């Protein structure tokens, strides 16, 4: 892999972290409302997967999708403005945090009813297959989403018709407050794909290089026309389920056990808090998937401490600018809301 790719992945992880932390802060200050589902801890998944994808591939995501959107190339300005509900948001302020869309970048949306990403993906992939295009559709979902009926229905059809789909499970072991052993009879999510004969693997989702590699392999198979592939990435979210969730349901021991292998400090903060940790606390928290990548690059002589600082500073600055942009963006009007609803009316006469 080229050094450039690695740097770019690291930068995206830094940007993702900075963006989400700032979003949390803006939320507590009342600039963002509604449900806000943050991604810290899971960055390696979005970054590894989407760096391995082509711009011609499609992405379908959930309500926890800011980072997918950013890595896909939607400008941070447009994402932040959407979280603020402003006119220059990527969904014009109509969708908000859980419903980011960008047609041009083939970012087909964040869907907030658990299980919707499967059939949407199925339909896009059906169109791709029918037109015999070399594109793939990447479908994100969580471990909890695996128990929705559409998972089963859609995987069956995807396999039956050999559709070009990469199913990506972000297994953070929790469905809000319910731990995976309490929601799934088989906790190794990738094994659920066996009922459809879809090739499936479990991969360490805290290791961005492993994620990237696994995704590349899977996409290659898909482009060979052999049908869908399934990847389970084991990961962990450092925060509560959403900004409304203190996350106190996770036993301290468990959080620490996970940290000791992956992220020894940062998460300990969480469960004592009703509120989101400060950026300083998080910064002080030590190695996680980002730290791992940083170490890897340092050890390989690919990145100096100065360069790292520069990347971090750039990320911070971009986020700062995004907030500024979002703040200044005007509110959408009722006329714009009506126009959004009627965007497909065209010249058609209704009555």
């Amino acid at each position, binding site marked *: 892999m080229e050094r450039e790719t690695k740097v770019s992945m690291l930068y995206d992880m830094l940007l993702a972290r900075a963006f989400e932390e700032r979003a949390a802060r803006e939320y507590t200050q009342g600039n963002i409302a509604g449900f806000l589902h943050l991604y810290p801890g899971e960055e390696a998944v979005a970054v590894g997967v989407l760096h391995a994808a082509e711009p011609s591939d*499609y992405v*379908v995501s959930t309500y926890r999708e800011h980072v997918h959107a950013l890595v896909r190339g939607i400008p941070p300005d447009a994402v932040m403005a959407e979280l603020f509900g402003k006119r220059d*948001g*990527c*969904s*014009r*302020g*109509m*969708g908000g945090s859980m*419903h980011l*869309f*960008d*047609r041009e970048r083939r970012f*087909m*949306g964040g*869907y907030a*009813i658990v299980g*919707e990403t*499967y*059939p*949407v*993906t*199925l*339909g*896009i*992939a*059906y*169109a*791709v*297959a*029918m037109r015999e295009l070399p594109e793939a559709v990447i479908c994100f979902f969580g471990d909890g989403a695996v128990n929705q*009926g*559409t998972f089963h*229905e*859609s995987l*069956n*059809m995807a396999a*039956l*018709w050999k559709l070009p789909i990469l199913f990506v499970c972000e297994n953070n072991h929790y469905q809000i407050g319910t731990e995976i052993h309490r929601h799934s009879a088989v906790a190794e999510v990738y094994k659920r794909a066996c009922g459809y004969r879809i090739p499936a693997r479990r991969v360490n989702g805290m290791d961005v290089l492993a994620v990237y590699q696994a995704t590349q392999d899977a996409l290659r198979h898909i482009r060979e026309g052999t049908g869908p592939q399934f990847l389970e990435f084991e990961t962990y979210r450092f925060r509560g389920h959403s900004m409304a969730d203190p996350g106190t349901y996770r036993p301290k021991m468990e959080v620490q056990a996970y940290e000791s292998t992956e992220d020894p400090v940062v998460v300990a903060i969480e469960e004592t808090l009703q509120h989101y940790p400060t950026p300083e606390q998080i910064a002080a928290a030590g190695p996680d998937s980002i730290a791992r990548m940083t170490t890897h690059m340092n050890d390989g002589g690919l990145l100096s401490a100065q360069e790292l600082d520069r990347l971090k500073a750039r990320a911070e600055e971009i986020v700062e600018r995004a907030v500024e942009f979002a703040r200044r963006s005007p509110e959408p009007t009722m006329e714009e*809301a009506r*126009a*959004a*609803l009627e*965007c*497909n*009316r*065209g010249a*058609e*006469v*209704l*009555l």
Partner: protein
Amino acid sequence: MDEVLYWKALNLALDAEMEADESVFVLGEDVGLYGGSYRVTEGLYAKYGEWRVRDTPISEGSFTGLGVGAALVGMRPVVEIMTINFSLLALDAIVNMAAKVPFMSGGQFPMPLVVRMPGGVAKQLAAQHSQRLEQMYMNVPGLRVAVPSTPQDAWWQLRQAIRSDEPIVLLEHELLYFSKGPLDVEAKAPPMHRAQVRRDGEDLTLVTYSRMVDLSLRAAERLAEEGISVEVVDLRSLRPIDWESCARSIAKTHHLLVVEEDSRFAGAGAEIAAELAERCFFELDAPPRRHGGEELPIPYNGTLESRCIPSVSSIAGAARALLGGKQPGETP
């Protein structure tokens, strides 16, 4: 002009649109090899192949959602849900996705999705298979709902629905599939949601749709012999509703009767009657009335089944009662 069966008109419409536009495809249970439960997709599998006429597993939620996904990238899927009763399993795709995604994206995406489904009370199919449920689709901003009652409208409205970039639910009636009517394939279609006066009259405006149009027309004939002149308005669409056409009629007759097959309580007729009661309040000489089905799941027994929905004579009775100022029950 040719006379064709209702199902055949739908079949011709599908064929015409599939021929004209490669992005049109149909999917559903047994629509392909088998030719469709009500023959609507007959012959299309042989002509267009399995990618454009796709037999699906019994997975309503996901294959309707497949339609949503395909529509996002400019395909024109026509999803057949075998009957409206099974559409409860697909409501998330229709209500939460198809109707909302174009809006939630700030107007970025097309949604040229058609969901067709037969419904209504047919012949002793029992409670789970006899639902009407039109009202479930009416209260959804972002959706349009069409209810063709004739082969001509079936032909027009299905084609219009396929050509529209908005999501449209097309409600067909199981007992209409084998009804016959004229079809002029060259005739210019009226706007898809325009109501149609099917019979002129002076004394009473009867607003209805789908299979009840035919029953209402027969009731009107019977009433004409008694000297009661009924104007029958076929709505053709349940969202939006062409209020002007209804109001125009009421301005003439000063009496309103809404006839629907569904249970009366909170059925489609509720919206029709409520809006017209408000709009035409000062025009009305008598309370606006709804004549609908019983507040019961449909019994299997045939005699009871037919007593649970309006009939020609019950409609005539309701009209007489309205004009006579009596309760429907009181008139034989």
